[in-house]
């Protein structure tokens, strides 16, 4: 193992919750979030031999895998259901009582609003609030740090409007 590469178990322990939260903000149920999170860490585990710490941070590396896995999930399952919910402006469905109990109910609605944002805005919010720097967000979204900041602030305002509309 390279000296600059922490044991994978440390990464797993440090990032599992953050990756799950990031994924959970994108998808419709905690079950989907668990599936995708599992896929993220399976992929990461297999690819860790090739991870080069000098090229990227572990956080950026893991969130890139998470973002790709989430996009794969949407491609595989289609966006019809997601689009329908967006149009109807329904809250995100949640059929898992245990999951409901585990998650802070007061924040579920907020994450549901995040999930309805356009893809890049949703990513900017989710990645930033998962602890990534704007520089890391920019790398993941293929834009500059300044562009990532602008994208984030537009997303923040869009989120506020979305929440206001629901309250109205």
């Amino acid at each position: 193992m390279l000296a600059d590469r922490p044991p994978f178990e440390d990464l797993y322990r440090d990032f599992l919750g953050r990756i799950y939260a990031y994924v959970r903000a994108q998808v419709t149920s905690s079950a989907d979030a668990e599936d995708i999170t599992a896929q993220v860490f399976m992929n990461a585990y297999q690819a860790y031999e090739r991870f080069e710490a000098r090229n990227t941070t572990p956080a950026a590396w893991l969130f890139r895998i998470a973002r790709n896995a989430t996009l794969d999930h949407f491609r595989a399952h289609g966006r019809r259901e997601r689009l329908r919910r967006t149009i109807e402006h329904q809250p995100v469905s949640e059929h898992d009582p245990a999951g409901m109990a585990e998650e802070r109910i007061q924040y579920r609605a907020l994450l549901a609003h995040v999930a309805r944002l356009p893809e890049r805005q949703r990513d900017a919010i989710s990645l930033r609030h998962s602890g990534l720097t704007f520089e890391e967000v920019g790398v993941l979204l293929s834009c500059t740090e300044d562009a990532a900041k602008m994208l984030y602030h537009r997303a923040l305002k869009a989120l506020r409007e979305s929440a206001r509309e629901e309250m109205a």
Partner: protein
Amino acid sequence: MNDDDDLELQALQRRLDDAFQTTRPRAGFEDELWSMMQARRPLWSRVGDFFSGLVASIREAPAVPAAAVAVVLVVALGIGIIARSGVHFGGAGGAGGAATSNEFSSTAQGASRSAGTFGRLPVPAAVAASAPPKLANPSNDTGAGPASAIAYAGPVNLVWAGQFTVSITNAPVYRYYEPSPAEVDQFATSTGASRQSGSYAGNGFVLAVSGTNPASAREPSYAITPDRSKLPAPGPTAVDTANAFLAAHGLVPMWPYTVTTTQVADVVRVLYLRQFDMPDGGHAYLVDPSGERYGIEVDLRSGQPLQALGPMLLYLDVAVYPVISADQAVRSALATSANSAASNVPTVRLTSVELVYALAVAGDHSFYEPVFLFSGTFTQNGIAYVKRVIVPAVGP
């Protein structure tokens, strides 16, 4: 952007921070996923980890005599490679004060499929049961095992006043997966039963099989009940009768055990207390969440079997984990102390410690994990109690 706008967006950012920081997967997901990841690794990789981990642990313990290292290596090789051995060893030494037997070799705790590491281990229910209970509801129970002392489950203040006699540095952890319907059918067939209208029955007996019970922390188990009209003649002793009954159904334990008997009213219970082999050649008992040893129970009335209950024979994977230090173990045990000045909270001197095994359930698979069982006796209102505290013996 005006000041109000600014404040509103800042508030929204704080809410987002909170939302992302408090959204976490359900309890148990972390352990389940880690175990799944380990299970999907190639076998050669897991075997490699197993042996490199073993070598590393031996390097970390330079004081271990060469002979002990050789024993550990032999046992590890046996666990890792041999699946089911027919080698029979002699007696296991008389614990429990009754007949003692050891039916199977050190390598055959059922069977071993592969060597490797299981990653982070879940905490056995027995450890959770040792956590300090609420002060408002002190209680006790009478336990279910062979010990006559009354187990105390209420809050106590703990003091360590014993000699830490366990010196082992590595211990095996065993894992099984829930048996499939086909495996249950196979087990039923091995007892002489077959599926009949949703249940199992054979010539002169019925068989029930249940999966792991997380609430009681019990592994997949069977209950076999003979037809009273078709009972064999009683043997010379209760143990002989129980042995014959188990042998007739192919249920004689394939793991090490000691035998003891108890009597409640007109029922004699023959207990085959399960043990696990340790790398130092010793054995460690399996205990339930209250710290009572258990295994197979055969109840007899008028010298004839009423029912036998016991764990299904399961294929076990094995991995070796380093055992925590004596200091860590004692600190963990004392951490369960109520630390209360209330007059109704007794102070108990823990005077003994034993390495035992306890079940930890983790979804579709479970682990037999080594734990330290601390105990001490005390008297309250003229009644003698035993207080048991169970703490993990290996890191997570």
